């Protein structure tokens, strides 16, 4: 996946979790959980969506690397 595809996937998955969320207002290094008020269930649903949409296996111990948009891009667009 290239970076644009990753961002499109993030937008699609988040739209199902936090429909009112505006990704444009979230900084690259901001913690998504705080910026979009995601609880642990929301965050798990984000991980499920990203994993299924990208085909990348995401280990639980790697979750902290996916707390920001920058982190997600780096992780999935390897």
């Amino acid at each position, binding site marked *: 996946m290239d970076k644009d595809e990753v961002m499109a996937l993030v937008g699609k998955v988040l739209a199902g979790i*936090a*429909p*009112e969320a505006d990704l444009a207002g979230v900084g690259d290094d901001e913690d998504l*959980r*705080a910026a979009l*008020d995601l*609880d*642990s*269930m929301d965050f*798990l*649903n984000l*991980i*499920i969506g990203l*994993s*299924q949409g990208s085909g990348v*296996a*995401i*280990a*639980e*111990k790697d979750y902290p690397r996916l707390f920001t948009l920058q982190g997600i891009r780096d992780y999935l667009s390897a």
Partner: protein
Amino acid sequence: MADFLMPSLGADMETGKLVQWLVKPGDRVKFGDVVAVVETHKGAIDVEIFLDGVIDNLAPLDQEVPVGTVLATVRQSGETAAPAVAAVAPAAVAAPVPVITEVSAEPARSAANVGRIRISPAARQRAQQLGVELAALAGRGTGEGGAVCLRDVEAAVSRHPAEATAATGSDVHRGFDPAQMRQAIAAAMGRSKREIPHYYLTDSIDFGAAAQWLAAWNAERPPEQRLLPAVLLLKACARALLAYPQFNGFYEDGGFRAAAGIHPGWAVSLRGGGLVAPAIHDADRQTLPQLMTAMRDLVQRARAGSLRSSELADPSITLTNLGERGAESVLGVIYPPQVAIIGFGRVQPRPWVVDGQLAVRPLLNVSLAADHRVTDGHLGGQLLAGIGDALQHPDTL
């Protein structure tokens, strides 16, 4: 002949507005079928029927009626038997949904009857979440035998958002009105603080064993099969409540009535404010993966405003879990007529004494607010200790 009544969906509900029938007069209904949609401050609620037979005399839509009003009659099979009482069964678990169900595409009384469409349950749920009229999907199914499936619903929205959602007929409003919900919370909590003599206890639980067990479980599984700490908390509470049933039930007519099963209401905070605590039925008898599935489904439907009547009618205690970004502890307010609420704060590393040595452990604050008319702090302390003990042996949960 038995009556199907407007159900009570919590102590704070006095009236309800019937906004959609999912059956027609003469249809066969089964125990646990969702037959109607009622609009409340907790969203549009799918109302189940707990009768078997043929439904008739459907009440007209869009009228605000008191709880207990007859909405329909059901002629039961073997009609010579004594009529059963039509009510929401307290211990009913939502019946498994068949793969393809038929639902009437229009309210039964609508003049413009467009007939019935075949639609999968997932598609119907999505359509409800998105506010898509089922009528707008007729003839657009791409599933087996022309059944409408999930992708058809989403396609309908992306194609013609206005047409799909603004179709004629009864427009069921999914979601909830935050102002109305705030009023209902105010009424229920005001009553609680006026009437219920609360007492409060707190305790600290070493969450190390549970955290370690969870990490090992989750490491071997793909994300969709992983468990959240919340599921262990739910199961530990259910176990402890089995041993201390005095906290699992209702204070009514001057006395305590134990609930028929362990049906904890799980507090779900809603985006835009407010919260709702629908029941997870028979939590003590479900495995951790089953509870995880139930919880994920419940949170999703609570936020989409599409809960079922049985989930709101009978929670026997409330559990509130602030989660990983929440405060360190919470002292709850009992939701009447329940008699207790258990609260969990955020797990955080703390200095802790283990075997006479100072160690850093993940600690969890647990609290109990309970009704002094029913129990005392001594028993409450035992309940909290029971929860703590259960969490030291996560493999047995």
